[in-house]
């Protein structure tokens, strides 16, 4: 009898047993909480069944997809997702470029250049993104009215309804999609080819030569891509044509615009604000990474006679890239999530569309989970891409 008590005592003193008990109690509490949440949630409608019904609202900005208000809510949501992805891709590219330039500028010996970078960071980083979005919208709306639009010989039309730029549009012969497909295949094929040739050069040291002129993988890839693209372009009898914007008056005297790529004030405002805002954070990241490099690197580069520009692009930035990428990924994720703020100026991206759906249907919870899943998968895609990049960058010479 006594031995059981003893054993129990020993058991209660063992760390493993204690850990198990603690976790068990913790899980019971969490379980009760989750049970409570689920029981409350079950009183609401948590299915997405209503998504197949007619959406019934228009979306002002559509890209690639042709959405009308008669389509289903799924399609409306999809249109929003496409808008978000488009904004994120453009925003990420531009913000990276801006941030890198400003980050280098911040450390430049040229006082004017570093002052600009300093002002840019200190002003824009410390004001809310929302204010910046509204600011850019006001700025864009102060462009001249459409009756007094600025035009450059029918190539660019600038008015407060947006900026129209020349754009490619598919011609009537119907080969447009086929050509895009061929281009995509050509891109993938040339990427693979150049990757293979570069690797062959790295590992085996074999080089393709043409009359003493070394052909690196990048050049071969580019040549192949352009050859395929231009040959298929002429074989398919010009599937794409340049679409010039035009401004005209109809018989009632109203000004109308047509054609071209429309850069609307809403898209411009949200894009400008996102790029400028995220750019400040990227600037700080780039500056921090460059400063964390040993000073000897710069001095050594200058000592072997490289110019300032060459030192930056060949020595400093490639090394800084290693410590830049992880925090940069974070900023990309922030940019993706911040794009939801465009709801304030009614740019119809994912969040705006789902808010409309929530209001129309009255079932908020399932739509919210849809938003959550969409943003999580977008984040996941960005993280995976950046992780692959990170692995490639850190591998070189490491």
């Amino acid at each position: 009898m006594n031995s059981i008590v003893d054993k129990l005592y020993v058991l209660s003193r063992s760390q493993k047993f204690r850990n198990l008990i603690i976790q068990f109690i913790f899980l019971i509490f969490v379980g009760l909480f989750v049970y409570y949440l689920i029981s409350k949630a079950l009183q609401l409608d948590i299915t997405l069944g209503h998504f197949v019904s007619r959406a019934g609202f228009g979306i002002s900005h559509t890209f690639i997809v042709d959405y009308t208000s008669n389509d289903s809510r799924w399609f409306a949501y999809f249109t929003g997702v496409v808008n978000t992805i488009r904004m994120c891709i453009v925003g990420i590219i531009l913000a990276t470029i801006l941030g890198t330039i400003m980050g280098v500028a911040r450390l430049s010996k040229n006082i004017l250049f570093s002052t600009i970078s300093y002002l840019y960071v200190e002003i824009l980083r410390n004001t809310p993104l929302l204010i910046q979005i509204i600011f850019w919208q006001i700025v864009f709306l102060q462009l001249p009215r459409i009756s007094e639009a600025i035009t450059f010989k029918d190539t660019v039309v600038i008015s407060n309804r947006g900026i129209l730029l020349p754009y490619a549009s598919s011609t009537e012969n119907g080969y447009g999609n086929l050509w895009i497909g061929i281009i995509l295949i050509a891109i993938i094929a040339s990427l693979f080819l150049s990757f293979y040739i570069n690797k062959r050069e790295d590992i085996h040291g074999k080089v393709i030569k043409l009359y003493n002129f070394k052909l690196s993988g990048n050049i071969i890839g580019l040549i192949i891509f352009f050859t395929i693209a231009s040959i298929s372009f002429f074989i398919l009898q010009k599937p794409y044509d340049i679409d010039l914007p035009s401004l005209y008056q109809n018989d009632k005297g109203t000004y109308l615009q047509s054609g071209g790529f429309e850069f609307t004030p809403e898209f411009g405002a949200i894009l400008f604000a996102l790029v400028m805002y995220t750019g400040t954070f990227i600037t700080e990241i780039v500056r921090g990474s460059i400063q964390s490099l040993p000073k000897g690197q710069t001095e050594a580069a200058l000592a072997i006679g490289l110019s300032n520009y060459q030192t930056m692009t060949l020595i400093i930035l490639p090394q800084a890239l290693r410590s830049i990428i992880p925090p940069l990924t974070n900023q990309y994720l922030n940019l993706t999530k911040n794009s939801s703020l465009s709801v304030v100026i009614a740019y119809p991206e994912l969040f705006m569309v789902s808010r409309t759906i929530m209001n129309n249907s009255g079932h908020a919870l399932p739509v919210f989970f849809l938003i959550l899943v969409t943003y999580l998968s977008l984040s996941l895609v960005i993280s995976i891409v950046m992780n692959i990049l990170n692995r490639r960058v850190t591998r070189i010479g490491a």
Partner: protein
Amino acid sequence: MQNFYKWGFETFFGSVFNTIITLLSLIILFFFINSILGFISTSEWKVVEVNRRLLLIGRMPPEHEYRVWPILWVASYLIMASIKTWGSPSYKDLLFIALGITIVCVIFTTSSTYLWVLTSLLICIFSYVITSFIGKSTTANNKNKKILILLWILLLPIIFTILLIGDGPKPTLWGGFLLNIILACIAIGFGFPLGILFAIGRASTLPAIKIVCTIYIETIRGAPLVAWLLLAWFVLPKFLPQFWGINEVSVVVRAMIILSAFTSAYTAEVIRGGLQSIPKGQIEAADSLNLGYANKMILIVLPQAIRVVIPALISTFIGVFKDTSLVFILALTDLLQVGRIIPEQDPEFFGRQLEALCVVAFLFWIISISLSNLSKKVEKSLGIGIR
């Protein structure tokens, strides 16, 4: 003088590339200054002048405006005393602080309230002077520090008491700059301790606790804040328990809950970074001293971990303060919304949105830049990065 010319030539026109950059910078700076001057010369600030009360307290009834001033007094005493006690401000810092406070006061003061504001300015000076007297003796200084910490902890209850005592206005009526400050204080006040707990949970060796904390943090961080606020707008009241049959949760309370949860997740990630930076020897040493888990965390791990991440924490808090402007989703009139609404109220102010927006942006900017300067100072005094 010769050297100066040489230096100037080298920095601005040293090479072709450098010359191009200089010219480009000049063009950008010219454009920037030109547009600012153009804006200033055409701007009319009357839209701000007549709406000062709205910017400060939003839709709160004017007869309750007097409740703001005691809060301001307490806050100004606390801030100045803390600056003197913990930071050793140089004259440059003091000039910056004085300038910032003066401009903010100029924005909010009307002819009927200038006496209240002047009192708070006097309190600022008074508290600074008295703290510097106390600082001369070490024992009194230590006592003073304890009192100040206690007051900081009590600040939120004091604010709520002042705002709600008697028949104070309903929280839904709070607005303007006051609402932003209150929301930020609540979010940080509740989010920071919660964040520490979640960070410890995520760094725990017990798999169940670790997984639950990770799921919480990643879920909150997964969706943007506006989405969470929208969820609070639609369904949060259905999830809260009914007290005495009342299930009328004020919109402000919903915003507070969501902002605190959001802050806790982001703070937890920052603190986790600090926890990971602690050498393993510290934990082993604590174990070998036979400290319990709580003691080990509170006495050994957390002080070191938080110390390392103070700059990152402050920038998270700046982000939270900026994010309080997102409560427009809940139809609350915070500072930014007031700034958007006031030009539309009167046809006289038509087309004066930029002026109102500039004032709003400036108010956000001055708070954020003060905090970020604070973080730089803390970073320097802690010697992070130099170690």
